[in-house]
């Protein structure tokens, strides 16, 4: 940006980025014409934009460089969240394999490394087809903790269901599988703490929807004593799927039942394609979202407006969808997301059993027909 032509360099830069990479060069040369100085400016900006990668994109606690990890070639960024970034990576030893490598955006005190490793070993003991296996852990060349897990290229659960236009029964079937993965981990004494669509990925294997839950127990890795941050600042996860007790605005223990609440929210989203919060929720600040989550009881899925497009994505019509939602599913959701911990499901298996029971005895004949179609 120089004084004589700041606008034009910037607007050419912006327009260039709106084009495909193949067209970019030709566009820039055309737009700059004979002005070689301008051409140089724009070229430098584009070059820096490319080289910056993702390092400036999410500044909330962001790191500044792509990680270097011994024994791995770190590739493309797969996603990022409040706690870290996930990269695709190639492991070079002892096995040559593709993994997902997650780098935490927090510091780890040297004295906490053994504990971090112990946690990692506990996580690697979770072996379940629907839970992405934790493989390795350590620190990057710049000292941030990382761990690797099974590479699971899938779509977030609700997206997968919409993309494949899964009927309610098939959605509930995948959901029940997710429950069994969560249940397995709970049985090992590990809970997730951050269940949300981006952590429940679904892949298609020969027409079958197979979920992989990622980041299991990562929140635990960031537990008070392990991590160098003042832990009461870290409020984990997006508030949308967070249980009231996790907001820390109310006094209640955070345990496996927080996962049950988050599963309830996922269920709601699978059923009606939205969350029980009103439209203004997303435009509110994080702090206000926490306040809403901690203080507003959830409303049942049948209270959500049903429109034809949404019904069509579930291969049904609005009237049928409305019928299907009321009754047992309402009750299941309200029990899973009850603010009163004693009235919430005590275990994921109870939740899963209710889902399976519903699937086994759908309320209407038309439902039975659809199920028959599905399983034929």
């Amino acid at each position: 940006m120089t004084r004589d032509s700041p606008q034009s360099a910037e607007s050419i830069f912006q327009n260039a980025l709106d084009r495909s990479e193949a067209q970019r060069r030709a566009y820039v040369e055309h737009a700059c014409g004979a002005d070689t100085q301008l051409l140089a400016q724009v070229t430098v900006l584009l070059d820096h934009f490319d080289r910056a990668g993702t390092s400036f994109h999410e500044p909330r606690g962001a790191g500044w460089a792509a990680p270097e990890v011994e024994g791995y070639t770190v590739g493309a960024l797969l996603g990022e969240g409040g706690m870290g970034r996930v990269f695709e990576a190639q492991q070079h030893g002892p096995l040559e394999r593709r993994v997902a490598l997650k780098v935490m955006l927090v510091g780890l005190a040297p004295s906490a490394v053994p504990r971090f490793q112990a946690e990692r070993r506990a996580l690697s003991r979770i072996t379940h087809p629907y839970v992405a296996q934790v493989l390795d852990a350590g620190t990057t060349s710049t000292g941030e903790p990382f761990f690797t897990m099974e590479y699971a290229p899938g779509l977030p659960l609700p997206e997968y269901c919409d993309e494949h236009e899964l009927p309610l029964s098939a959605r509930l079937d995948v959901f029940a599988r997710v429950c069994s993965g969560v249940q397995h981990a709970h049985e090992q004494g590990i809970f997730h703490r951050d269940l949300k669509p981006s952590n429940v990925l679904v892949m298609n294997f020969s027409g079958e929807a197979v979920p992989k839950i990622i980041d299991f127990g990562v929140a635990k890795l960031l537990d008070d004593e392990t991590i160098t941050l003042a832990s009461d600042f870290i409020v984990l996860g997006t508030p949308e799927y967070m249980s009231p007790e996790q907001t820390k605005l109310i006094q209640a223990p955070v345990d496996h039942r927080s996962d049950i609440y988050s599963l309830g929210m996922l269920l709601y989203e699978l059923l009606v394609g939205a969350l029980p919060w009103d439209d203004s929720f997303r435009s509110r600040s994080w702090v206000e979202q926490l306040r809403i989550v901690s203080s507003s009881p959830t409303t049942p899925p049948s209270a959500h407006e049903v429109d034809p497009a949404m019904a069509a994505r579930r291969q049904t019509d609005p009237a049928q969808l409305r019928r299907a939602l009321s009754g047992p599913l309402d009750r299941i959701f309200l029990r899973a997301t009850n603010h009163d911990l004693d009235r919430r499901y005590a275990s994921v298996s109870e939740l899963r059993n209710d889902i399976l029971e519903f699937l086994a005895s759908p309320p209407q004949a038309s439902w039975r027909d659809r199920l028959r179609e599905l399983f034929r």
Partner: protein
Amino acid sequence: MSQSEKLSRTLQRAIDGDAHASEELLPLVYDQLRSLAKARMRKVPPGNTLQPTALVHEAYLRVAGKEEVNWNSRGHFFAAAAQAMRQILVDQVRRKRAVKHGGDRQRLDVDDLEIAIQGPELDVLALHQALEKLEKEDPRKAQMVLLRYFGGLDREETANCMDISVRTVDRDWRYVVAWLHRELDPDGPE
């Protein structure tokens, strides 16, 4: 009047359009962030750092209490808090350097805070200086950097705070990315 009350009242005056209040807001927020950080530092083991954006959000929670607050007032607060946090971080770096060069081998006094933007190799001073330059060239983008880096606002919050669209934030941010990378990268092409 307590520190928080004073801050709340000044914030309200700033929202009502009192230009003096806006000026008074900065030192008040600065003090509040520092005392909050100090309280927090006592609870963490030595050698640890605090996350600045978490401090800013906690400070906001205290001022706003449990009331609903509209974006207009949040914008005022976060703009001041981000500026204050920037000052705190810059002061911290300068003080550390002074201790290093001054031969004073004592432990930094209790007033010293450990607040760090997470991530390796972030040179707060370099960012601060780049931001000063950007403030002269393009104040809107500079404000955006301030809110996002030092205030910890995400793109939507930034858009609300600055009363512009998220699309504008995203477009401007592409330019900011290139610009900052150019400014902060000593090896890059000039």
